[in-house]
């Protein structure tokens, strides 16, 4: 396992280097002068020169990249032009909210998806199975942000059961109950598409596993059906399920941007969109960097989890 871990960590190096180049290049994609874009056409010549020097834009590209990477490695992501504060503090502050949202959505989609998938696989072509097939088609076709708005209108505005937006109530809130109440709608919205994907894959894998000879043997031995399905079936079907849950974790991190915007959730997504509209490039770079890094780490964790679940992978 240690050798596998070392090899997997080594593989991270080129990916991280590539990710850093892409994020660095974002600033240089713009066909015009980034300083002009950030400051607008009204800025004075001195302001432009000052910002150009501050961002190091007067240096050759590779020098700029080296300098930027050096700063990033020391945890210095620059200063936000719009908020006039260090980018790292701002992004990390907001990242907690994004983690709470995506973590809850991932938990929700894994639990509901696996449960639904197992139930569909044990009773193929039942009403539940058919409903789950229709739901998965709908889930893949529905814009997340629209589902969010519809849920908000029904449960927050019409029925008044849940708060419509934000993470805590403006007055008198701040405790766990308040957070949970605010979390329900965005987490359900974000999880909706993933539930259906995880459920379909769990169903397919479980159907294949339940058709194996050892399952027949277990049944013949008189093992209780519940144990056959869960201990003999689900346990062996877990590897592809873990894969898809890992992929969904990344999808949720990205999808959170839209959900956060719908529900005014104070996460990295809303910060990034505000940063783009305010032309605050260092802030946008910081947001993308933190989310991309956590995505890479999630993928690493999923790979390590496979190796732990299936020893064959370690020795490949």
């Amino acid at each position: 396992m240690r050798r596998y871990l070392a090899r997997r960590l080594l593989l991270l190096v080129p990916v991280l280097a590539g990710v850093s180049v892409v994020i660095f290049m974002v600033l240089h994609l713009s066909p015009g002068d980034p300083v002009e874009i950030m400051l607008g056409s009204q800025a004075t010549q001195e302001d432009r020169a000052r910002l150009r020097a501050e961002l190091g834009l007067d240096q050759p590209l590779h020098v700029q990249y080296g300098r930027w990477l050096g700063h990033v490695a020391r945890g210095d992501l620059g200063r936000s032009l719009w908020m006039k504060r260090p980018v790292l503090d701002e992004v990390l502050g907001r990242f907690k909210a994004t983690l709470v949202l995506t973590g809850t959505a991932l938990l929700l989609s894994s639990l509901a998806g696996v449960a639904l998938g197992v139930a569909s696989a044990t009773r193929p072509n039942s009403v539940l199975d058919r409903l789950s097939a229709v739901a998965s088609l709908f889930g893949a076709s529905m814009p997340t942000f629209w589902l969010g708005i519809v849920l908000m209108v029904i449960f927050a505005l019409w029925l008044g059961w849940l708060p419509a937006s934000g993470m805590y109530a403006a007055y008198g809130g701040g405790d766990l109950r308040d957070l949970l109440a605010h979390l329900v709608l965005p987490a359900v919205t974000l999880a909706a598409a993933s539930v259906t994907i995880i459920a379909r894959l769990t169903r397919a894998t479980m159907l294949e596993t339940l058709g194996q000879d050892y399952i027949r043997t277990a049944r013949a031995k008189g093992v209780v059906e519940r144990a056959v399905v869960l201990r003999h079936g689900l346990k062996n079907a877990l590897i592809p399920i873990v894969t898809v849950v890992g992929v969904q974790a990344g999808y949720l991190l990205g999808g959170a941007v839209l959900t956060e915007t719908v529900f005014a959730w104070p996460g990295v997504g809303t910060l990034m969109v505000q940063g783009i509209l305010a032309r605050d490039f260092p802030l946008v770079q910081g947001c993308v960097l933190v989310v991309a890094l956590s995505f890479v780490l999630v993928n690493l964790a999923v790979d390590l989890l496979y190796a732990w679940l299936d020893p064959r992978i370690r020795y490949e």
Partner: protein
Amino acid sequence: MIVRVADGGRADATELGAEGRLTRSLARVARGNRLAVLAALGLLAAATLALVAPWLPLLDPDAVDTVERLRQPLTPGHALGTDEFGRDLLARLVWGARVSLLAGVVTAAAAMLIGVTLGIFGGFYTGWIENVVMRLTDILMAFPYILLAIAIVAGLGPGLRNAMIAIAIVGFPIYARLVRGVVLSLREREFVEAARALGSDDARILGRHILPHLLSPVIVAFSLDVGAKILATAGLSFLGLGTQPPTADWGSMLATGRQFVILSPHVVLLPGLAIFGIVLALNLLGDALRDVLDPRIQAR
């Protein structure tokens, strides 16, 4: 020489057989899958409406009329009501279909062209070309899909064209991976070896022997991808990074209508339903195409 004749004859027979089989499969699927036929008809209707929008008796989609703002559906003169600026929603939905459908098809096509080209080269030529292609896709896939698109739009500046460029860039690695996998397995097959032994150059082998085998998986991937691209473009427009006002586009209609959702839910419900309906139809059609073209699914 004898080998050449025999090889050519067999290839022709296979092609004819494949064509006949395809027509038969399509007919069988159409009979068995009424939903897919309905989806195809719906898509055809939407595409026709979008195409002929300039000649339809519709109101100007951008004409502001504050007296008529937020009218409910079935108001005389406004079959689907009006938005917050009094603009006719039916006209905006039909004109918005032009933007949304075009964006979906064009971005998926661009992603497919780049991805298929890179995938062919990455699969056919081992060595540095393969390495470059694979590392490039690895790096792009190390980002959450929509996040990278947003980051690219941040660099290029908001706007429909830039949003489409961004979505095409983040979309091509999937095609590159898919095609490379198929090409890798084809490269070792006997018919490629035979073609090479007969003196065919790389261009001929790629064009005549490898490309035809890529059609089915790429068509299936493309048909399912157009819907995903429509959702992605609508998402960027919703964030204010795609289509800019006053141009009608389903995503931006949702974004601006959001503030008036309590008073007039239809302003948000209608564009959302339009996106949902089109993407649902595309997914149904894509699933049906996969049933026809993917032999592994048929065998199951």
